[in-house]
């Protein structure tokens, strides 16, 4: 699988993503510089990594969405290319309109950095096909603007279309208020577009995919993409 990792000024999870895809999962992985507008048609996957691109100025992802590389990523996604946005990458995908909704400040008003549980809500996507349906993944989060918002009507529509891929839950997979760390509507932690080729999630699968660390729950997401080819 040919993978591209976009580097924005302020990205800080780009090397983690590169390490997992290149060194751990042995994929053909390349850097994509934010100032370049290039033809991405030879790529199978583009990753927008976590971080604080453009200092999160104005709103997280609002400025990055207009960087030259996005002029390549948006048509790539519209033609069916697979795009994975993690944390700040998720925020950029929402700002660019490739995914529905918005991410707001956590309801606790604090930056949250901890391990959380998420439940896999749909395995019928290239990002989750190797996961067990309704299985619970232990994945870290680290964000200040991670409270997913979308109006009630659109949320129901997304649920019906299988666009909700992950929800925050407790260790047994129960969706409860206390297991929702940031106040996201419907405890939503990750969503995809209707065509199911663009996915964004707040938790960081790249931070739990190296077997040097006892938890490799994040690998199921990357392995789903690799199985897809």
């Amino acid at each position: 699988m040919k993978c591209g990792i976009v580097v924005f000024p302020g990205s800080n999870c780009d090397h983690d993503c590169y390490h997992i895809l290149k060194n751990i999962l042995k994929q053909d992985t390349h850097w994509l510089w934010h100032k370049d507008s290039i033809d991405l048609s030879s790529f199978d996957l583009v990753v927008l990594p976590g971080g604080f691109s453009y200092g999160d100025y104005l709103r997280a992802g609002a400025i990055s969405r207009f960087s030259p590389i996005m002029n390549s990523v948006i048509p790539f996604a519209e033609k069916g290319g697979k795009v994975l946005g993690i944390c700040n990458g998720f925020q950029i995908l929402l700002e660019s309109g490739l995914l529905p909704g918005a991410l707001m400040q956590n309801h606790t008003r604090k930056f949250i950095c901890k391990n959380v549980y998420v439940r896999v809500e749909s395995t019928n996507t290239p990002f989750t096909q190797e996961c067990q349906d309704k299985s619970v993944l232990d994945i870290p989060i680290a964000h200040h603007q991670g409270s997913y918002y979308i109006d009630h009507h659109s949320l129901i529509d997304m649920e019906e279309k299988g666009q909700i891929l992950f929800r925050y839950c407790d260790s047994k997979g129960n969706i409860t208020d206390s297991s929702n760390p940031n106040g996201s509507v419907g405890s939503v932690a990750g969503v995809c577009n209707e065509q199911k080729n663009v996915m964004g999630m707040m938790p960081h699968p790249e931070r739990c995919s190296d077997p040097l660390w006892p938890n490799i729950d994040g690998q199921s997401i990357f392995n789903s993409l690799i199985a897809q080819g």
Partner: protein
Amino acid sequence: MLAQIHVTFKEGVLDPQGKTVHHALNDLGYDEVLDVNVGKYLEVKLDSVSEEEAEIRVREMCERLLANTVIESFRFKLVSTE
């Protein structure tokens, strides 16, 4: 010309910052405070455009970049700086 732009959360979108400020004002004894909405204020200086042009351009700037219209609404005033 100067565009004075206010960006605030839409009605019904939870504003945790506004809520906290609201509680703080109540704690200080300002019981008359019913609600607080914390937003952004931007001043955009414009070069020699007509007011009609500015109205169209600033609205476009708000819709494309300055506000996220999924969760935020905006309003602005154009002020002559001459």
